[in-house]
């Protein structure tokens, strides 16, 4: 290759880069579209809605709703950031990341990050029969006895509710939530 070509290439490249910068620089940056959002933010918003449409019969009136996260896939941070200062029916929202399964029982909502569903599956502490709304974005979570599973279909967030699991936990979910969910049942024969 001719030695001069490299310099010419660089010059042309600089020209192209300048053009791109000019193009992008003059465009008015707008707020991110509501039509397109990172999935952790959407999941955090779903979690907030689940808490809003759930009822814990034994929860005292002034007590906070404790939302716990097992494993960190960024949702805990996204959730804390977005619910700051919010409350649901007079209950403030507290966020916690329990160190081990002993800390799960005090939670109203317990979210398992995708990879941590095995901690739920292998739980011997009877979390399934505690009044805890278990949620995960791990595949097969609802089928495995979790209450709500978040999944993506057709590029949009959907959720499945295991009615048997909700019943066993004693958490009441509003009919509005059930109407939007894909309803599954535990298979007790396995």
């Amino acid at each position, binding site marked *: *290759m001719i030695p001069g*070509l490299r310099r*010419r*290439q*660089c010059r*042309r*490249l600089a020209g*192209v*880069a300048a053009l*791109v910068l000019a*193009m*992008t620089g003059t*465009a008015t*940056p*707008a*707020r*991110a*579209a509501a*039509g*397109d*959002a*990172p*999935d952790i*933010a*959407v999941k955090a*918003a*779903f979690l*907030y*809605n689940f808490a809003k*449409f759930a009822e814990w019969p034994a929860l005292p009136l002034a007590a906070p709703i404790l939302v716990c996260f097992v*494993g960190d*896939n*960024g949702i805990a*941070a996204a959730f804390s950031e*977005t*619910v700051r200062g*919010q409350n649901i029916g007079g209950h403030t929202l507290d966020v916690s990341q329990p*160190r*081990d399964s002993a800390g799960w029982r005090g939670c109203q909502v317990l979210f398992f990050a995708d*990879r941590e569903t*095995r901690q739920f*599956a292998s*739980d011997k502490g009877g979390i399934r029969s505690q009044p805890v709304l278990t949620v995960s974005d791990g595949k*097969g979570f609802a*089928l*495995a006895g979790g209450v709500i599973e978040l999944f*993506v*279909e*057709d*590029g*949009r*967030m*959907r959720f499945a509710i295991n009615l048997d699991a909700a019943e066993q936990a004693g958490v009441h979910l509003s009919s*509005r*939530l059930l109407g*939007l969910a894909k309803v*599954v049942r*535990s*298979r007790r024969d*396995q």
Partner: protein
Amino acid sequence: MVPDMIRSLTTLRMVLAASLVAFLPSNAALAQSGPPDLMKLTIEDLMNIEVTSASRKEQRAKDAAAAIFVITRDDIRRSGMTTVPDVLRLAPGVDVAQINSNKWSVSIRGFNGLFANKLLVLVDGRSVYSHLFSGVIWDAEDLMLDDVERIEVIRGPGAALWGANAVNGVINIMTKTAADTQGGLVRVEAGRSGEQGAVRYGGTAGAARYRLFSQWTGRTESLIAPGTGANDASRSVTGGFRADWSTSPDGFTLDGAFTTSRARALWSNLNPQTAARNPIVDEPSDADGGHLMGRWTRTRPGGASLQVQSFVDIAHRNETIGDYQRGTVDVDAQYHTPLGAHHDLVAGAGFRFLREKFNGHVGLSLTPAEDTSSLSTVFVQDEIALFSNRLAVTLGSQAQYDSSAGAAVQPTARVMWKGLPRQHMWAAVSRALRTPSLQDRGIRATLPPTPTASGLPLFVVTQGNPAAQTETFVDLEAGYRIDIGSSAWIGATGFTGRYGQLQTQEIGAPIVEFVPSPRITVTGQFGNLLAATTRGLEVDGHWAPTSAWHFDGSYAAFRLTPDLAAASHDPTAAFLDGNAPRAQWQVRAAFLPGTRATLSAAVFHVGRLEQLQVDGYMRADVSAEWRFSGRLSLMAIGQNLSDAAHAEFGIAGSLLMATQVPRSASLRLRWELR
């Protein structure tokens, strides 16, 4: 070499600095404009938001004790690229070289070639590695990129989980489920490099979702030199379907496709009668092939899952060198289960049956011309979580029995430490193998004669070795990754590996022969007398200062030191550099102002290929997409803008001639119907 590296680093720094200064939002308020206030939306509205797959991407890359990079559907769409090999340029450390208008060589961590024999490529779990050629025939897979969900690129050995020939890396292409491709799609594009049209329809039938698709691709000829065409245009047509249905707890997938392509390519003329007059011929390079695959998945309460998958695949190629036919039947089963709170176990077994036939044309033959072989594999991998999940140890191994190469074991041990906040550290040691192919054992290629002083013509013959040995590899890797705030991360991977029994070509003494005509023959027979050490460093990072801006960058350095046995008579092996650049880098930026426009720009630099004597090159791409509505969009794409044309690969080691890739611009119209 070192000055070269410093120069590219300096250039990289300059480009980075320039892009930071220029791209940094000048409006301070912009920095605070976070994601839309999702808390104010109703749950019904939330269900209508299209989500991006970024966190899944990051999660995958974070959790694995391996160098994984995920190319998402958003990355693919923004890139404006139309072929899988081009899209692979987005991943750090992948060497992509376009050989001519319709052929590519793709490798990771060296050993690149038309058939890069140490890289495994899977499409939805189906291997597209050609056993005979020891490599991937990229033009045989005309995938519709609209339907690709993501591409996982794993650098380093993946043999323990994926099996044979996953020596230097694994590329795992995953297509969208039929549920994700409901409704219609029409895409047409045309420009300097060719034209492409794609249609897809996705619907529902009872409990099943399905899609039907077809794609036509025409590629314009590349150049021999700026202004001179190479007459290697091609066109191909693909048609296929995918259906998914589930009756809890079972899920089923059936997919199939057929591709037929007609191309031309420049080859060395092996015909002794005409070679002196026409050393290079342009010849047809035609291919037809298809597959049918079925998969059954059962999820059990408790998180365990069983998956059984089977495919049949047929391929036929007609090139100037010969006529090739292949039939493959493959069955795989895999079981995944958590065991207690600490173990996550995956185990599986597979069987592949292969029948191949090759009728060589003038100058080339294969013995035996027809071969039947089988490969049986079993693997097990356990991921053990310790110290409250702060430490994860993964132990795994694959064992295989190849009907021609015998038994082999490919183990791996990996450890990941997540003890420090926002940081992931991992290290791994693995062994991987490349089994000899039919070509390694039985090829015979005679190059056209050259005159000698003795008056007798000289014939150089490449001869396979029936006793070809398995190439071995032991690799050490370590990686580190840190999240900087919630909007940026940077990661680095270092590796060093030792190859043994690499293929050499042992040149014998000249022999005078009188049949079929008087001549001097020099035979180079394959041997396995080369060892080599590789080492390298790969750095990649991502920064999204606001949700409208995305920056990605990567740098990869690679060195190969050959260690040729004293007994070897291979004249070139001592200069082996892996046909890979010693350094390559890229910087990409995307800007998404509002709902309608997407702008992106990318600069790639690939260093010089020393042994092939191919100069380093820059590639600059830009694209701008405008959405008229949620359904209709127009995209303008510029590719290879930094020069009129450049070569990306050389001819050495292949009979196929490399040409030059020209600058191009194109327009893409995309229409979605729901």
